[in-house]
């Protein structure tokens, strides 16, 4: 299945905007994604393995937090995951 990576996190995926993983659940897909990228794992999960509250993960167009089985929701190859981080820019200044 395809995982869409938002711009701020692409530094951890060698600039790729989407990553293909094979997994049978949302959790499995995120594990597969972060297996080779510990820095990305730190951005997405707390130390006890929970999704950080400012990171939203969507399975197709639904927030995973509101799915009955949450991260354990079963997925197939045609499903898409999207990671939505907080962005604040309106003008984007840089120091």
């Amino acid at each position, binding site marked *: 299945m395809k995982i869409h990576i938002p711009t701020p996190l692409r530094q951890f995926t060698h600039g790729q905007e989407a990553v293909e993983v094979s997994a049978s659940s949302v959790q499995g897909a995120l594990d597969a994604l972060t297996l080779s990228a510990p820095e990305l794992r730190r*951005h997405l999960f707390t130390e006890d393995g929970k999704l950080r509250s400012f990171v939203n993960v*969507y399975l197709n167009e639904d927030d995973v937090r509101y799915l009955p089985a949450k991260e354990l929701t079963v997925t197939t190859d045609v499903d898409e995951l999207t990671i939505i981080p*907080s*962005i604040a820019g*309106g003008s984007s200044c840089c120091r």
Partner: protein
Amino acid sequence: MATETMIPDVATELPKLSNEEIARYSRHLILPEVGMEGQQKLKAARVLCVGTGGLGAPLALYVAAAGVGTIGLVDFDVVDESNLQRQIIHSQGTVGKLKVDSAEQMLHGLNKNTKIVKHNVMLTSANAMEIFRDYDVIADGTDNFQTRYLVNDACVLLGKPNAYGSIFRFEGQASVFGAPDGPCYRCLYPEPPPPGLVPSCAEGGVLGILPGLVGVIQATETIKLILGIGEPLIGRLLLVDALGMSFRTLKLRKNPDCPVCGTHPTVTELIDYDQFCGIAKPATAGPLEVSSHGSVDQGQAVVDGIPQISVEQLKARQDAGDRPFVLDVREPHEYAIVNLGAPLIPVGQIGSRLGEIPVGKDEEIVVHCKSGGRSQKAALELRSAGFLKVKNLAGGITAWAEKIDPSMPKY
């Protein structure tokens, strides 16, 4: 009776349009979805643009062109030439002027009928409610998390819809928060990311056109809310990807446990948003133009145990033949713009490239970046890696260009 139904209702509460206005708005008036009543609603409407930057610029221009009667502008900043890459409400001739004055000039040039209310202040918990109270729709075009949460909470507390937009590099988000039964910004993001986890300015920048795309979406939503037509982005988050040129919408839900709009709210008045976002209060620059990781005060001699060296001090020492090792921690694309000839290790790679530092751990290192924020972070990392004499060049290469070598470009 039959004759009465042949005469449609004419809204009497709404302001009348002059003949000049009827001619001006003819393309709206012949759209049944807008029509005479819709145009009168626009004339009666009061829209607040929070920020007149990248998003606020196209937003305010289109809202003024559409015939919104009153537009409030909140900004305390001054127009800088580097704003003109995207902030099309400002222009070459208004560089150096207050943004609210510059924006007013452009908006009045576009539509003489628009009433502009200027709020040349930094939006804070102390003034937000008072400012927002007078408006029907709030359009959030700010650029930092503190103000995002402040705008959200004030909108929810006052029951005002928030036409939200935000951008980063090539990507944008838009939604309508704070509508009566819709979710708010906190339903989506209950809390802000800790400062250490937000994208650093090494990954900053924005494609100039992107705020145009997203700001016009905010303007569209604002106009739809005023007219009561179509399906506003309530309960939906629009994702815009300018590189792939894809637009996707995701469902947002109202969180019953939301601290501000949930069934048992714990936030019932505005709070200290700097503290909530875990960052120091902005010093000189205000919240609309402060990067999310905060700024380093150039006046201090030591910050978090790292001595700060001024560009004048460094220059004087170099002129005297005392040349400490200088390390540039910016990105290669920034080095290509301008550099001091110092070796380059981007801040994100310091930890893995310590072996490339050509001086001993007891020798002096002066770290610099663009304006002193990233180099402070790098200096702390070097110190924890055992380098004992690490200093931060206060103000970075920007201060060097301003005070030592004015022939150098600033970016």
